[in-house]
């Protein structure tokens, strides 16, 4: 009996595992997914993968307005607790906005790492391989710069190997900066001065140099910072500085790198610009920042909008950021979110030169943005100390609301506590780093939370 049964079973199993039956459970390829090997064996798809990384970078720009709340630039009127945690410098490790800031930047890093790894073994042309790799390295450096500046202790992720990265340890800041500088030098060596495709939305040689000059400044390597800034400025591609109205338009003269935005409206548009004349703006300038613009400063009138709203007889005036004008897609002249621009290069060089005791050259550079804004130029006899003071003030005004410049400047100059503790109740020195997001600590127990959280 048993023999027959096992005999019958054996036949069934044989029938079942034969090639004919194996086909029973073969399924056609998914119609909405492309396998990695396919992506990197086709020049168009491989380029699309790079554009995907740029797209993710564009998406991450929305997080930087929270850093304006975190410093002394903006206040918020929404009552949203996640925003309030930024405003009051008490970001909880489980704050979803903090989580997405971290996650989006690391997503860019993964995409860059995947491009660097996959193109190296691909059948793509050497020219395209080099181009894609160089741009990927630029994006990786850009993301790493903000991660290390905002979080302090981050892991160094330079491969797309998830198995390995999921247990990564944090490294010290100099290690991250060494990688950033190496990536930017690699990118600068390969990239051409011209831009790929239309606009200035993919990194060229000067974008790499411009970011490098910033990194050197932050590292107090003033000579290198000045040299890189000079390379960008003297390329002639971006100078002279145009009028205030043109800066944030798509492909403006001053732009060294912008991120491309659908319909010429920055992703933040609808969050920053109130919808109707009766709507209270969500993000408003702090009184301190508003007052920092003198009456003659054109930026105070061109880059700040006001809205007066009256409720039950009392009218309140709100000042809100207005560097970008387009609230929604296709609603005006195209604007792209700014990543790097010439004015910053002048201010970097000014600061570097001033530190190198070359004050008169520094004064010339800082006067570039001052005169454009309608301020009187600094006199040639300004002292080094006053010059640095003027540069700091100029950075605050010129770069307000852009890419967390204010917060990073206060942090690198060690002024966070002095500036923020009088105006933010509950300020703690440990708030100079954002908390590592809670889930990261849960899913990677090798990570350590920053002090104070």
């Amino acid at each position, binding site marked *: 009996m048993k023999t027959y049964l096992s005999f019958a079973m054996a036949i069934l199993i044989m029938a079942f595992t034969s090639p004919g039956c194996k086909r029973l459970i073969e399924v056609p390829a998914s119609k909405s997914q492309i396998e990695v090997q396919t992506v990197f064996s086709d020049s168009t798809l491989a380029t699309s993968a790079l554009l995907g990384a740029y797209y993710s970078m564009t998406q991450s720009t929305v997080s930087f307005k929270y850093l304006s709340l975190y410093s002394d630039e903006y206040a918020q009127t929404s009552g949203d607790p996640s925003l309030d945690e930024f405003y009051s410098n008490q970001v909880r490790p489980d704050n979803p906005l903090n989580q997405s800031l971290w996650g989006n930047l*690391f997503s860019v*890093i993964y995409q860059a790492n995947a491009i660097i790894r996959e193109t190296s073994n691909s059948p793509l042309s050497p020219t395209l391989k080099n181009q894609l790799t160089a741009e990927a390295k630029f994006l990786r450096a850009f993301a790493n710069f903000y991660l290390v500046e905002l979080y302090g202790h981050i892991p160094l992720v330079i491969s797309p190997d998830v198995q390995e990265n999921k247990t990564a340890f944090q490294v010290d800041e100099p290690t991250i900066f060494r990688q950033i500088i190496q990536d930017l030098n690699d990118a600068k060596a390969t990239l051409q001065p011209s831009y790929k495709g239309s606009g200035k939305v993919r990194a060229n040689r000067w974008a790499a140099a411009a970011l490098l000059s910033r990194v050197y400044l932050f590292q107090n390597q003033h000579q290198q910072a000045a040299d890189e800034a000079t390379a960008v400025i003297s390329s002639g591609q971006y100078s002279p500085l145009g009028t205030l109205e043109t800066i944030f338009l798509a492909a403006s003269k001053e732009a060294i790198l912008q991120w491309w935005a659908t319909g010429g409206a920055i992703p933040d548009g609808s969050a920053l610009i109130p919808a109707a004349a009766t709507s209270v703006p969500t993000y408003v300038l702090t009184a301190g920042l508003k007052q920092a613009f003198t009456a003659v400063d054109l930026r105070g009138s061109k880059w700040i909008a006001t809205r007066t709203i009256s409720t039950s007889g009392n009218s309140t005036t709100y000042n809100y950021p207005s560097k970008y004008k387009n609230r929604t897609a296709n609603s005006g002249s195209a604007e792209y979110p700014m990543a790097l621009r010439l004015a910053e290069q002048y201010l970097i060089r000014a600061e570097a030169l001033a530190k190198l005791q070359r004050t008169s050259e520094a004064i010339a550079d800082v006067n570039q943005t001052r005169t454009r804004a309608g301020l009187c130029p600094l006199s040639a006899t300004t002292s080094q100390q006053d010059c640095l003071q003027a540069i700091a003030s100029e950075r605050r005004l010129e770069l307000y609301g852009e890419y967390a410049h204010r917060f990073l400047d206060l942090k690198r100059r060690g002024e966070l506590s002095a500036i923020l503790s009088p105006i933010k109740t509950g300020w703690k020195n440990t708030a100079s780093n954002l908390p590592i997001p809670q889930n990261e600590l849960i899913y990677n127990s090798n990570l350590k939370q920053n002090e104070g959280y």
Partner: protein
Amino acid sequence: MKKTIIFIVLATLCPILKLSAQTNNQISGRVVTANDGKALPSATINIKNSNVTVQSAKDGTFTILAKTASGTLTIRYTGYQSQEIGFNTNTKTLEIKMQEANNSFDDIQVIGYGKTTKRLNTGSISTINAKQIEEQPVTNVLSALSGRMPGVFIQTTNGLPGGNISVQIRGKGSIAAGTDPLYIVDGVPFEGASPNGTNNAVSTNNIAGNISPLNNINPSDIESINVLKDADATAIYGSRGANGVVLITTKKAKAGETQYSFNLQQGFSRAASSPKLMNLQQYLEVRREAFQNDNRIPSADPTSTNYAPDLTLWSQTEGTDWPAYLLDNTASFTDLQGSISGGKNNTTFSVSGNYRSEGAILAGVNNFQRGGIQTQLNHTSSNGKFTLNARSSLTKQSSVFANPVLNLDRSYLRPPNFPLLLANGEINWYGNSNIQAELDATSKTSTDNIISNLALSYQLLPSLSLKLNSGYTKTSYNQKLIFPSSSLPPGSLNTTSFSQNSGQSFIVEPQIDYHIRIKELSVNLMAGATYQNRTNDSQFIKANDFKVASLMEDLGSAYTIESRQNTYSHYKYASIFGRINLNLKNQYLINATIRRDGSSRFGPGNRYGNFGSIGAAWVFSNNEFIKDNLSWISHGKIRGSIGTSGNDQIGDYQYLSTYSSPGGNLYQDGVTIRPSRISNDDFHWESTTKANIGLEIGLFKEKVLLTADYYRSTSRDQLVSYSLPRLTGFSEYQANLPAVILNTGLEMSIELKIINRSNLNWSAQGNISIPKNRLLSFENFENSSYAQLYKIGEDLTRIRGYQTLGVDPATGNMIYAGQDGNASTTPFDNFTLGKLTPDFYGGFGSSLTYQNFELNVFAQFVRQQSKGDLKRLPGTGVFNNFALTYQRWTPSNRSTTVPKATLASTGVIYPNSSANVFNTSYLRLKNISLSYRFKEAFLKQIKVNSLRLYAEAQNLFTIWNSDAAVFDPESGVVSTTALGRNIPPVKTIVLGLQLNF
């Protein structure tokens, strides 16, 4: 292939033929039913204490040859009481009238690919019948199982009609992969998982959360639901049986006069329970105290850090109870069922229709409607060898709910004095939320479901039959989430999400059953194969900026498309399986199953898996010694089983590393592609080894029935969406966890027939389950993503967080424990504070029938803990808090467990501390039903067969610690995740009328 079978059959038949040749006393007879004299084919007739057995023919006749002049015949037929009849040389023809079995042990027990009786079943199975389902006015039939079955833990996680219901059979065996059981409707697998998955935009922004596909089954169409729990019962379903199997059998048409039947119900619902929050005066008092404690002064300036509109601008005297406003409204419902059935002799039919319309307890405009038609045709050929059962059902559902989903977890915690309108008449969007305005958002879902089954069988030889079961299921979901400008904070773009999801599945299962008898040993062999092919197509489009508010369901009116996505997946599944069942003298039983499965969800090389089980039972009450000496034991059985089953509840194509193109996400006017998944071609089946021992006892002619089971299941290689730190670029990937999870438990149930007289019947039943869950081992645990979430040796559902050591009477601050357990300024975040696995759960009830009245009462109980919804310290933020925080520390109330009011955020510590873990044990009066059946004499006058009036109540009251910071002890807290959108369950009162003529 066919030749082999015939060869096997003939070979095994030979010994029987040889034996029969030695006999001399020929007895013939006919086996019929006692009530209507119908022939019973294939009844087993055995000469007692011999190995001579025959089966009755299709007309019920049989002929048996006895070796002895006199003796006893034993006649058995599944579902009927066994009979013993003496014979001698004078006996020529016997008319054997079989009584239907009226004790539950001889009821037919449906099992995977077959049936048996409860008495002879070797596995662990719980059953609920049509009557118990009908007593409960539920929308989703799963709700009706709640508390009724040991080992089956059912939670209503969303109380809206059609909302999700979570089912867990014998504990959580998987860390993350689906823990849904396998649903089988009339032999055909029914996709039980929500069509959207958990992270899909459609379920995330939908108040109804995940849709339970089981809503497509009309509870009144169901004859019985059997839940298969142990290896013996589930291993035949191989790779899909690890989480248990739910067999749903629909009602069969009965022969006879054409019957017309109608059932009408009308009822009302409210929320079963509501949270206790502070009232306005308490709220204002705590808030003011917080400002005072922190030496700050409330400001009316929106840009001030001390801005407190609740203290400076809003009414100080008038408040609203927001949870009640939002979720405790009266909903009414109407349910109508009708059926026509009948047929003669070989052919029966039935046609039934149903319609249900139901409101919701949610504020705003809500309506859920379901309608369906079911047709059934059964035919048996005149020689009785060929049978055909065809059934098809068509169900249409549509629901429209207000969708205040974006801030659901905050809305109900708005300060009581939050004004919906500002003084100037404008909508108050403080905190980017306004409950009334947000009710303008709508969630619309319409579902079409077709189930069509065809079962054919042919009896080739008296002992050999061939079956072919095939089925086709198609379900399409069409969802729209409409957020008009009026429902969104000013300046937001209005938006509509359109989602379509259509899945179709085809299955064919050939099967051979063979039965032989070797002396006293009855052998049943079954072999079969499955081929299933399922495709799923879905589309998602999110469109913004509709210029015409009334055209928000028109895609063409959208100015921009924010995102669009479609997915297509294809799943193929093929298996072979077999079962051998040995029965010696109805006393010793062995049941063994084997299954080999192939699934396209795994990478090449990992596609096949083998599963199997062996079960054995000893029906000791059929032992001669016990029969003679302990006759008060009417049924006794010890059974045991061990085996493995698997789980493949993961998405398709997960083994590939891919890029995808979110079409709307352009860059430089060109298309972008981004990584959508990282590969792991290494993952394979998840498997669970289940062991079970059980004891069943029936005493005093089955007046007392006791069942006890102990199980021990170990799950390995859990398929999980392994959570990754985002620094890897992803938040998850598909993997097998090298973890071993142990689920053990004890289940007991009791049924008592206390009084059993013609006009008075009183019975009671109860059950209890004591589950335990433990993470046994985890390879390289310290470096895994789970090192913080779990602990080796502890429950998988452990609640982790900070340990509080009470409130400092001097300062009013909460004291937290450091890693060493002592008070510390650096609190340790990974104490085990509790677990979500209940300590025990069960239900008990009683039925009383007196003359024409019937009363049923059923209660459910659970002892458990839950994490509460204390988000903030007393006084922090412009948010109300649970009433328990009113007992905060004050200089005059120093011995308390609630810290003092403050404005300072304590970050994640307080909400994740033991102060936010509550005992949410409850006893819920699940059901009361009272009915009156009109007397026959009266019915004859009005020419009606039966008429019944009834009243039913569901979830009428609940006993629990209502101070706990949850909405409802069953559904827990309300959160914004799709799985946590826990609208509380409803209490319902229903009046109904049932008519047959």
